Structures are given as C-alpha cells and as structure tokens.
C-alpha cells in the first residue's frame, strides 16, 4: 500500500500554513490600489424608499462612489437569480420574484441592500455610509410563517397571493389516505424546525477587480463553489462573458451552506470595480452577516403516522409550511421540497407517504441550505413521530424502529418517495450505538440522577440521508437549473509529482489531504508528492463546488476517473518501454510490470518518458495529464444511529448533554481522523440547534438575535465529549464506495437530543418540547405539566 493512501489518518497538509497564520482568506488579500466598500442596509423589515439624499455621503472624506438601486435599475443588471424551480400541485411554476442587488423602491427585510459606498479606506467607507440619508415609508411586515399565512396578511410580493411561493406535494395521496383509513392507530405531532443562522466564523468578503489592459474581471470571494458563482455572475446577474471572468475562492473560513450562494455583494464589488477601474473590497461585519447570510431551516410541520396493531408503519402524512424569506436564494426552493420530501421514508419500510409543502415569503433574510439542508428537517419529523408512536402504543422505541427497518437483504431498496437506496445496515449501526452508549444500563443512571434531584433522559435517532446530489438528468427533471457532475484534472509533472485540480472546494473539509491520499493510493506514490489545487476558475477546468456532502462521492469519483485515465495512458508508454504488449502489463503499487516477470518501470520513469518522449509509442500524444467529468449515477445514502443522554435541572430547566454516541455509515473512509472531525462538528451544530440556537424576529420583523451577543452559539462548555465511530457499508455505484460525512452529525443529532429531553420529562406528562429546548422552555414544560 502507498504511504498515506486510502484509510490512513494522514495528518493534514493544510495545517502547517493555517497553524502559522499563513492562511490566505479573502479579507487578508490587499490588491494594489484597493478601495473599500460599505453596504447601506435597510433598518426596516418592509418599507418604501421615498428618497435618498447622498450629498453628505458624497462629500465625505475619501469617497469614490455612492451607488444606489436607481443606478442599478438604469443599467438593467444586478438581478440575483435562483437556481431551482419548483412547480405547484396544479403544475404551474412557483412565484419567482426579482432580487435586485440594490433595492430601488422597496426594502423587504432588515439588512436588505440599499446603497454601496466606496471610499479610499474601510473607515471612510463606513463613515460615509452612515451619512447617507434614506427616507423610508414604513409598511406593515410579516416576520414569521404564522403571520405570513394569516388571511389578509401584508404581502411580501403582490404576485404571491397569500405570500405563497409554491404549494408543492409529493407522494401517493390516495394510497396514503387509504392506509390511514384502515390503520389501527394514528399518531400525530406538531413540530417546529427552528430557524438557524449559520455563522461560519469567517464573515463573508469579496473583492472585485478589473484589468484595464486585458479587460478581464476577477472576483475574490468567500465561496464554496467559485465556478457556480462565475456562471451565475456571467450568465445572469451581470452578463460578463465567462471567459473574461475569473472567480477565486482562496482559503475560506467555514461555510456550512451559507457560502454556496451567489450573493448581491459579489455582484456589487464587481460592478463598482469596473466603474472605478480599481479593486473594491467589501468585508462583512458580523452583525451584517446575521442580516445578510442566508439562514437555515424554519419549518412548521404537522405529521401523522399510521400503524397497524403490531406497530408496522402503514403510511406517513406530512404537511409543512416553510419560510423562504423575502427573496429566493440560489438553492432555496429545492431545500424544503426535493431535499426534504424524498427523505421521509428514513430507514423504514413505510409503504405510503404523502407530503405537502407550502413555501411562503416573509420579510426576513432569505432561507436556504444550511448543513444538512432539508434532511435534518425530515429526520426530525420522522424520528420524533416514531418516538411519539412508541410512547402511545407502548411498544419499545428501539423495537418499533427495528421492526420497521429496511433489512440488509432488501437493498437496493425503492422507497415510495423516489429515492432508491443502494446499501445500508440500519440494525448494525443501531446495535453498535446502543451498546457503546450503555443503553441497557440506563435506568440505573436515571435512578442515580433522580436521587440527586436531576431528571435524566436518553434518546435515540436512526436516520438516513442523501448525499452527492445527483445524476444531472434527474436533477434537471427536479427543477435544478444546472448539472451536478464534478470535474477533476490530474497533472503528472515530468519528475513524477502530481497536481490534482478539483472543482470541489475545501473550507475545512481537508480535501488537500484526502484527495492527495486518493492519488497516492491509485498511483502508488507518497502522499507528499501530491498537491491539490482548488478554488480558482483560472486553474481548475470546471466544477460545481462543495455542498450536500458531495465532494468525495462526486468530486473524489472524478479524481479516480482522471487517475484511471492517467494509469491507462501510462500503460501504453510502459508497454513500449518494456517491449511488451499493453495487455501483458499490469500496474500495481506504483510500478508497471510485465505480468509474470520482474521487468518493470516505475510510475516516475513513465511520467518522465511522457514528457521526454524519445522512446515512445507511435501515434501517442506526449504528456501525462487527464481531465475527467463524473456524473453521479445515484445519490449516496449515509445513515446511522445517534444516542443522546441528558440531565435536566427541574428547578431551572437547564439541560446538559452528558453523553453522546454516534455510529454512522459513511461508506469507504479515506481519512478516519478527518471523518471523525466532520462528525464532531456536525454534532455540535445539531446539539446547538436542539438546545441553544434560534433566530428570533419580533413581530415587526426586527432581528432580535442580531449578533453573537444575542444568538446562542455552542461554546466548548456547552457540548459533551462525543463517542463516535463508523460501521460502513459501501456505496455500490461510485468507484470509491464513499457516501459522505459532512452533514450526518447535524442530521442525526437534533431528534436524538429532543427525544432524550422528552424521555427525561415523560413521567411528568410532557409529550414534546420545541427546539431550542432552552432552560425557559424546559422549565415551562415542567411547570405546565405539573399544573395539569
């Protein structure tokens, strides 16, 4: 095996630079003659812009430009597109309102962009921005789903009646209704999936730059997918020819979905840079991030599960209201639909499922994909209602799950909600997790806690998710306006070193290490000889970026395909050098060998020959560099079991996670150290959602949780030490067998935590506690139950 190949916990190649403070994040870049931009944002949730007086701002020291929505409207550019179209039940398309990079006449959420002020320095830009006088006429706002769907509610968009963007459904309604009609028991539950603010620790930033000599435009941006941003900027928001536009996403400080999207500020800095013919930089202050980064989740759901006498699931019916905010962000329409409804089978054999989703506009920040994106919402619905069903039927919650699991011999398994799962072993991950969590001995721990006056509970979730979206033809049929393949280029240098160019983007995931391990494994060379390059559209042929845990399953597969092409071409060269027929040469552990002999050439010798082709096969091109595009054949389906144990102080409602165990099935693991780290991070975000985090708007649409002072981010002391491991079945349809790991932690954990909280309080008569289960909520639940 190659040194540092697949399966080894190789220490990361990224770390030395990041640990020495030598990372290069967008805000670290200083371009020659760079100017600075500040965005003037709406303080109102909904208002008409009556008048903008800019004289004072324009006269302010160092100001180079003040640009408003009127300037933008005059040029007829700057409309930020959405990349996903959803159709209503009646077949008509969703309402797709415009999204101007600067508002000309109406603002629709606190933080909406009103003007861009560019000055010589950051302080001058911010000072001048504060001098811009915008006269608003305040209008009534809807800040929540409940407000938006009230009859006669103020409209975010006049063309969206009842504030409805779309009214979508999925599944077999007739079969579902029929199953409910004959069910011996129906369990129902009302759930809120709380709105979250992503808060990658690096705030978004962007620098636009225009080269007067070549006419080329460059955008440096905090993006998870620079090629997609280039495509959207080139083809939609701006109209710059793609070959004259370069997008660079250098080191990026976390994304979690929030940096997938094409944001107005990216357009604005490019627009200003081209006008001023100077680089223009904008960096968000954290409070700007809160009101301009796309938020996540925000569902209100009524779910019903039909069971027969022995606990077999007969049907699931789900009705969800989803908040999309004021505008449609890049992937937004697809998240509460195709990333949600299709996951409602979970790991169960439920034969009939019907899901309705009404998505509404509100005067809030756009809502889009956030770590898990639709799948945490689905897992939460399922795993909460299965627990509720266990309590109501008296069937043990573990046995009820096991009874309804898809069995290992049933794969490939066609669910009633379109997806076909390729592999999994839900019983195995469940058994392992229960054993490691000490499930069997829990009642003793509960009694011991009770003796101390504490309420202890244990909860589990068994989840499935879908990664590596998706065969492009399928994606197209679901309304995606792009292909979802991935690209890799493998460049073998004459002296045997290798550079891999990948269209995925790493912003913490460690691709520079794992993708190098793949090359080391396939080529039989040390991992130190492989460099991974990503994030620059001028270097990488193309790419769709990183989201939906797709990088290894789709991007890694493209790398494998390109490596296989390199190996195949090398075989022709080696056969010629070895004076053997190509069919007699095999490649193993970095050497081409004539089968059954000791005659061989190393990969390095072959690489050198490719560039110094003195003794070379006739008709074969010199050089050793291959590009591959990989279009996935299916989604991949990670799954697993999470077990959470909590202790609640009944006097204060304070809930502490005292133990958390996860056993996940993520397919083939390239680097177990990185896989474990990905799960840890997801768990903290899931525990954060369950116990701490929540975006709060008041009724007037003011963002109350508008900074890190008011939004409860998990700290080191809020989370436990996690016990995580994997039990993997291989993906059957991609060359690596890998499924994806980036989001599993955030998907499986919220229901496990809430199931544990409810378990701790169930003896008091508490049936449900909404997320975040804050001390106040838990305290109230205890008090109300005691009163009842």
């Amino acid at each position, binding site marked *: 095996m190659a040194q540092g190949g697949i399966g080894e916990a190789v220490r990361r190649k990224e770390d030395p630079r990041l640990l020495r403070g030598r990372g290069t994040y967008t805000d670290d870049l200083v371009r020659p003659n760079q100017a600075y931009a500040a965005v003037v944002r709406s303080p109102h949730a909904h208002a008409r812009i009556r008048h903008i007086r800019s004289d004072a701002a324009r006269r302010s020291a160092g100001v180079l430009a003040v640009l408003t929505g009127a300037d933008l409207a005059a040029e007829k550019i700057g409309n930020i597109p959405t990349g996903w179209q959803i159709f209503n039940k009646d077949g008509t398309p969703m309402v797709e309102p415009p999204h101007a990079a600067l508002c000309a006449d109406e603002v629709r959420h606190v933080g909406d962009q009103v003007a861009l002020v560019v000055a010589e320095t950051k302080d001058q830009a911010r000072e001048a921005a504060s001098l811009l006088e915008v006269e608003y006429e305040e209008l009534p706002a809807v800040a929540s789903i409940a407000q938006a769907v009230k009859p006669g509610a103020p409209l975010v968009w006049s063309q969206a009646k009842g504030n409805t963007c779309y009214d979508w459904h999925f599944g077999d309604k007739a079969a579902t209704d029929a199953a409910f009609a004959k069910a011996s028991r129906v369990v129902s539950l009302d759930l809120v999936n709380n709105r979250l603010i992503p808060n990658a620790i690096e705030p978004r930033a962007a620098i636009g730059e225009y080269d007067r000599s070549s006419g080329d435009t460059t955008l440096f941006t905090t993006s998870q997918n620079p090629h997609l941003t280039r495509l959207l900027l080139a083809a939609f928001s701006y109209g710059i020819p793609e070959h004259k536009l370069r997008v660079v996403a250098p080191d990026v400080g976390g994304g979690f979905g929030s940096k997938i999207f094409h944001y107005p500020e990216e357009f604005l800095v490019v627009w200003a840079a081209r006008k001023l013919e100077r680089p223009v930089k904008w960096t968000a202050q954290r409070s700007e991030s809160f009101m301009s980064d796309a938020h996540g989740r925000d569902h209100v759901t009524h779910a019903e599960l039909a069971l027969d006498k022995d606990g077999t699931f007969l049907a699931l019916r789900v009705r969800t209201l989803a908040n999309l905010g004021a505008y449609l962000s890049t992937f937004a329409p697809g998240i509460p639909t195709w990333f949600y409804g299709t996951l409602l089978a979970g790991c169960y054999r439920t034969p009939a499922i019907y899901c309705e989703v009404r998505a509404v506009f509100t005067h809030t920040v756009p809502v889009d994909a956030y770590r898990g994106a639709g799948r945490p919402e689905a897992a939460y619905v399922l795993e909460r209602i299965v627990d509720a069903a266990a309590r109501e039927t008296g069937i043990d919650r573990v046995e009820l799950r096991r009874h309804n699991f898809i069995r290992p011999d049933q794969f490939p398994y066609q669910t009633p909600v379109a997806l076909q799962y390729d592999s999994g072993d839900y019983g195995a991950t469940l058994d392992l997790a229960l054993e490691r969590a000490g499930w069997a001995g829990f009642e003793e721990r509960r009694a011991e806690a009770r003796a101390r006056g504490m309420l202890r509970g244990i909860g589990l979730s068994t989840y499935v998710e879908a990664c590596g979206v998706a065969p492009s033809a399928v994606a197209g049929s679901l309304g995606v306006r792009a292909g979802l393949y991935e690209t890799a280029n493998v460049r073998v240098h004459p002296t045997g070193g290798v550079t891999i160019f990948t269209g995925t983007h790493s912003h913490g995931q460690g691709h520079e290490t794992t993708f190098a391990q793949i090359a080391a494994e396939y080529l039989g060379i040390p991992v130190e000889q492989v460099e991974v390059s990503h994030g620059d559209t001028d270097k990488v042929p193309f790419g769709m970026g990183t989201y939906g845990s797709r990088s290894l399953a789709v991007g890694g597969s493209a790398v494998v395909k390109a490596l296989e092409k390199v190996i195949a071409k090398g075989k022709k060269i080696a056969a010629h050098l070895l004076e053997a027929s190509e069919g007699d040469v095999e490649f193993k552990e970095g050497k081409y060998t004539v089968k059954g002999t000791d005659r061989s050439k190393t990969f390095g010798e072959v690489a050198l020959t490719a560039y110094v082709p003195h003794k070379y096969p006739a008709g074969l091109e010199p050089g050793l560099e291959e590009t591959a595009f990989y279009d996935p054949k299916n989604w991949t389906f990670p799954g697993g079991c999470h077990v959470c144990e909590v202790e609640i102080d009944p006097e204060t409602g304070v809930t502490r996670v005292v133990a958390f165990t996860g056993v996940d099935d993520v397919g083939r693991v390239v680097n177990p150290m990185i896989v474990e780290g990905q799960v840890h*991070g997801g768990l903290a*975000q899931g525990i954060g959602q369950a116990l701490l985090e929540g975006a709060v708007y008041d009724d007037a649409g003011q963002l109350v949780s508008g900074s890190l002072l008011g939004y409860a981010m998990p700290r080191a002391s809020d989370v436990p030490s996690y016990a995580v491991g994997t039990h993997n079945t291989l993906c059957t349809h991609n060359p690596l067998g890998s499924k994806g790991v980036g989001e599993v932690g955030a998907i499986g954990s919220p229901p496990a935590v809430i199931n544990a909280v409810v378990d701790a309080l169930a003896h008091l008569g508490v049936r449900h506690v909404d997320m975040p289960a804050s001390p106040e909520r838990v305290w109230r639940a205890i008090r109300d139950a005691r009163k009842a």
Partner: protein
Amino acid sequence: MPSIALEVNGKRVAADVEARLLLVELLRERLGLTGTHVGCDTSQCGACTVHVDGRSVKSCTMLAVEADGRSVTTIEGLARNGELSPMQAAFREHHGLQCGFCTPGMVMSATDLVSRNPGATEAQIREWLEGNICRCTGYENIVRAVKAAARPGRS
C-alpha cells in the same frame, strides 16, 4: 496622531496611529500580520486573540495606543526556529482545526491557559475556551489538543 512604539513578535515597531485604531487593525492592516483574524464585532468570537506581555487579549478590544511600550505576540510569532510550538503541533496531531479561521485565536488562548495552569482538567479547558468560538470542530479535538499540550507524553 499619537506615536507608539512596541514590540511585535520580537521586533521593534514604531507607528503613528489614529487614536481609534484597534490593535487588531494595527496588526492586520498596518503590519500585514493577517494570521490574526476578525470574526465578529462584539468581542465574542476570540478569533483575534493575541498575547500582550504574555497574556491572551482579544485584540479587537484593545486600542493600538494601549499597546504602546508593550510586547505583542501573534500567531506568526509562536513558532520557534521554524518549528511549530507545542500547542500548534498538538492542534495538528489531534486535528484540532478544520477551516483554520478560529485557529490562531484558539491556539493563542490555549497557550496562555497552559502557561497559567499546566495541569488544566477537561472542564477547566472547556471553561477557559468559552471566549473562543469554533463552528467546525465541535471542540472535541481542540480539547484533546490542549490536553495533550498541557501534559506532553500523557495523552
């Protein structure tokens, strides 16, 4: 404009600065030491943590003029003779970083903890790190790294 003189990573620095200039702005924008990051505007995240006279300070809460006559160490000044410091090395060994953005502040803060309390327990480590937010790691491997650096050879 006030003139200040201080030591940054062992080198003498003199600068004329606006009175309102923050220490983090002096480091990043005037001295080009971009390893110190800015992650928030309310002194919550800790990404800008540096050492002033050997003690961790959020450099967004300190004016540059307050650093006059003092000694500042940033993440760039932690490695000695090209070798990662024990804390930096422990973060690498235990995968205590992912995106790397909170990392400089985390490492500076943890280095101060270990110098104050070499035998810090896990609970003490977690409590100390309350002023540093990480969104990637779930803190598990950061805590492991700090433990290992606190007790070399015992983890």
